[in-house]
């Protein structure tokens, strides 16, 4: 009890309690709350920023994949179109070749026909000329002398035959 009495001064205890309460309420209002709140705000801000970065990253990844896919698609399309163009070119060249072949055939046939016509024409005109020559010759023979008729006729006939054979 003596220890208690020498060491405890009631008034001092009361003043110390008041002092601590003043410090406590002051610091709670002016230091702890603002600092802890700002720490929490900063924490949530950083968390939010990290989350948004993560989201942006994911978005970029998705876009990248999308671009890669569309690029692949475009490439495939280009390749298909190129192939189509090559096929078309081949087809056209084949058509042109076929057409040219047909045309040349037709031209050839026509030329052949023309040639035959020309030959026929020539043959007709030749015959006419021969007939004229024969007439001329017969005239000449007749004009020379008609002594031995029979002999002369045979001669003329043989000449005509020879001419025909020559044709």
């Amino acid at each position, binding site marked *: 009890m003596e220890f208690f009495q020498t060491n*405890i001064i009631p008034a001092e205890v009361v*003043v110390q309690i008041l002092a*601590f309460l003043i*410090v*406590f309420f002051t610091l709670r209002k*002016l230091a*702890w709350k603002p600092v802890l709140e*700002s720490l929490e705000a900063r924490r949530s801000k950083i968390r939010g920023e990290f989350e948004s970065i993560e989201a942006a990253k994911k978005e970029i990844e998705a876009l990248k994949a999308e671009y890669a896919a569309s690029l692949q698609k475009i490439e495939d399309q280009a390749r298909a179109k190129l192939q189509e163009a090559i096929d078309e070119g081949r087809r056209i060249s084949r058509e042109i070749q076929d057409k040219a072949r047909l045309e040349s055939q037709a031209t050839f046939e026509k030329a052949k026909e023309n040639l035959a016509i020309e030959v026929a024409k020539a043959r007709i005109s030749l015959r006419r000329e021969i007939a004229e020559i024969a007439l001329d010759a017969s005239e000449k023979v007749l004009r020379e002398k008609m002594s031995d008729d029979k002999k002369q006729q045979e001669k003329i006939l043989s000449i005509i035959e020879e001419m025909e054979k020559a044709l």
Partner: protein
Amino acid sequence: MEKHEALANATHDAAHAAAHHGHHEAHELPNLLAILKEHFPDLPGLDFLLQWQNIFFSALAALLISAVAIRAARRKSLIPDSLRNFVEILMEGIAGFVTGILGEKHAPKHIPFLGTLFFYVLFMNWFGMIPFMKAPTSAWSTTAALGLITVVYVQAVGIREQGFAHYLKHIAGNPSTLVGWLLLPLMFCLNIILEIIAVPFSLSLRLFANISSEDRLLLKFAELNTAFNYMPFVFQIFANCLVILFSVIQAFVFMLLSTVYIALLLPHEHEHPEHDEASAHAH
């Protein structure tokens, strides 16, 4: 050398001064007020301050903490400067520690009280080591005040969080069986003694005894310095290192125990039945 002698003389005189006032014998280094008393005994108001020296130095500690903390708290910017950063580290450390014991739900309400308690006690402890200062926690009146505040705070938290009926039931030892009800008066008295009377005693005596011992230690080591003239300050530096460490430990223990007392009076969570079961088995 002269300084040490002066120190020893001052100590001696302070002892005389203290003896005159009848408070206690000299068992700590002389503080500013004692030295002033020695040199200017007739200074007006000095006797009053000497009589209330614990409150004087407590107020200094309170002003110091408040000035630093409020100054730091006022600097609001996204990127904190060095002072703000330092204060934030300290506050966040305390907040993290308290949250670890009380949990996310209850901790935020009690962090300011426990944190203020820690830093207030810590600075008062350290004052014993700073030249011309005195550790107010080396007086039982100071630590008794802190102990009383803590026990009132803890019991108030218990009543508010559990409700008065549950709180009474807790004090009565949670009687559920016949034996429990028969033992109710005994348990009631026991719990009153354990939780309301013993707590401030244990908190305040522990802190008071430790810090006054530290002060005696500082004084004895200072006397050793004056005794061994060829080793100035070696003992003092050693003692200071010990005091720095023990002051932190004592302030921390005070806060830790207060936190645990609060945790014991919080309503028991039934969200983790397996955990409760495990702890019941452990008991």
